[in-house]
């Protein structure tokens, strides 16, 4: 059984249809990339997978571990192992990063029937992951993402991912706005998460990130549908020729 099966997925916001019949299968242990120009529906797909209610699914289905993902609330999907690294991580004044992350971990542990982790036990776990991402421990005592730099925000997403250990990780344009050093660190954090029982979906506009996180499959999304799928070489072809040829391919 595949970890994720998306069948003929249609979704809209208001009266605006964004996803127009997406088919995609992702197995545990694989890394896939979804590439596409602005407005192609990449972020919408990522948010639908994380169960954001702003998007209305009008047709199709998503099976996650054989279960109906669309019947799950965001918190249920998260507890079942779906993780979205946000394109724009949200600032939450008044809640410290450490408290937030521990609350998230404990919500998931509670869901699985495990004991909650107290602040003392959480500290060493957090420190280990911070080190991996070259993050300053002081960020943990600040409000979630508040006045973090762009790079700090993205690293914070990967930090959450490495603490929460999802089965399906979706990275939504995690590369945007990162300088090359930050990009390497983030990629390193993601690569450390690659494992036979985990799947990763890398959503990106540019090929650059895929130099560091090499995908097993690349899917090109244009105007709400997957127009081409292929191996990592497809990303290079896109880099070379751009999206224009693919766009004309769909309209034909």
């Amino acid at each position: 059984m595949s970890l994720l099966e998306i069948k003929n997925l249609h979704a809209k916001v208001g009266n605006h249809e964004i996803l127009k019949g997406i088919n995609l299968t992702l197995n545990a242990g694989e890394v896939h990339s979804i590439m596409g120009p602005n407005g192609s529906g990449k972020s919408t797909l990522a948010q639908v997978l994380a169960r954001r209610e702003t998007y209305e699914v009008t047709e199709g289905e998503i099976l996650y571990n054989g279960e109906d993902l669309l019947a799950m609330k965001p918190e249920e999907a998260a507890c079942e192992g779906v993780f979205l690294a946000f394109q724009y991580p949200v600032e939450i004044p008044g809640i410290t990063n450490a408290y937030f992350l521990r609350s998230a971990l404990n919500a998931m542990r509670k869901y699985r029937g495990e004991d909650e982790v107290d602040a003392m036990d959480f500290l060493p776990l957090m420190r280990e992951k911070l080190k991996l991402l070259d993050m300053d421990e002081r960020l943990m005592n600040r409000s979630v993402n508040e006045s973090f730099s762009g790079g700090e925000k993205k690293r914070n997403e990967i930090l959450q991912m490495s603490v929460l250990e999802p089965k399906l990780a979706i990275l939504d344009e995690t590369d945007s706005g990162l300088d090359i050093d930050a990009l390497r660190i983030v990629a390193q954090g993601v690569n450390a998460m690659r494992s036979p029982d985990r799947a990763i979906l890398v959503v990106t506009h540019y090929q650059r990130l895929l130099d560091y996180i090499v995908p097993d499959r690349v899917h090109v999304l244009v105007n709400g549908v997957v127009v081409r799928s292929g191996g990592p070489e497809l990303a290079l072809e896109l880099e070379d020729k751009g999206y224009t040829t693919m766009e004309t391919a769909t309209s034909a």
Partner: protein
Amino acid sequence: MELATQALNHYLDAFNTFEKSAGGPDWLRELRHAGFARFCETGFPTPHQEDWRFTNVSAIADTSFHLPAKNAALPSHKDLEPYRLPGAACQLVFVNGRFAPSLSLPGKLPEGVKATSLAAQIAENPQEIRGHLGRYLDIQRDPFCALNAAFLEDGAYVHVRRRTVAPEPIYLLFVSTGGSAPAMNHPRNLIVAEESSEVTVIENYVSLGSGVALSNTATELFAGDQAVVSHYMLESEDRHAFNISTLRIQQGRGANTASHSVLLGGALVRNNVHPVLAGEGGECLINGLYIGSGRQHLDNYMLVEHAAPRCASRQFYNGILDDSAHGVFHGRIVVHKDAQKTDAKQTNRNLLLSDNAQVDTKPQLEIYADDVKCTHGATIGQIEETALFYLRSRGIDEISARSMLLGAFAGECLDRMKEGPAKTLVETLIRGALVEVAHPAKVRARQTAS
């Protein structure tokens, strides 16, 4: 008009009866007479008056409140257990505005600190309070203050001698017991902190039993030169209660005062905070939080007067309003002619949790000096959907996520309180109030309604 006359007649009868039995020296009788005369001139305020634009008190004006009987039964010690404050230096209990010595815990106050009932002080040594009592409260401006003066008899009297520090807070618990007929009480508190002294006073208003009740309370707080005084006003009465309160602060040179108001209970609540920074270099923090649901009306009226140079005032009020609750923030800052180098800041932030919740926020600056810094800002918003989704996408359920976000918003008010028993009490009260507004049933009802 006829109705208004009837209402005043009712108060005239009450005043005549009250006056015969109330004791005290002539100057005190004069204070009461002046208060009642002023109230007769004005009657209850109406929304046509600017200061009362957003708060209609006709429900109070139309109710025939009576003064509680002197020999009414007292609640038991057990009844009061949930409202005790561990860590307080002493706990004075007032039942329907009257001091209840048998329920109070005198505790152990440091040398130079006195906490007693105003009635006892009047009986024993009225001369000691003559210089302060009734001197600061403005009965001309506010009919409720005039009414409070008319029925001035009991309340708390706290006195802290020069250079004396009271490390633990003094806790004043005001209990309304309700009853079959609507009851009113008019407690007057007087807090005198002499030069370089330090004290914290907590007023907590609660209900035992149900029934319509009006607490019309006034506190005069005198902070002498260099004195450091914190005051807490906690409104936790039930949803039948009317609560009108005024805190009038008079502060001297280099004095540092803090007023913390937390309005959670009551049906119709009006909290007036009126500090006058009368000595050079004084500082005043006016910190507040109001959390309303159902049909609660919570009005915060601030009048901050800068009357001396180089004083700083900081107002921070946060409001959370659910269901059909109505919040009001009226922040008036007056900078007098000689108050150069004034630094006044005002911030009011609101979260509306339902379509029917409402808030009116009104800053008002009157500046007669030319070298001042005054800023104000107000925001009204909802719980951010993106923040809620972010928390939920990390496995935190919707109710917990809402509680976390509301807790963070309310927590800004807690962050401005010093560690200690008062803050701990407020934390507990806020947590209880937030459970109410983040409750699953309400969320579900809201979802089906929309």
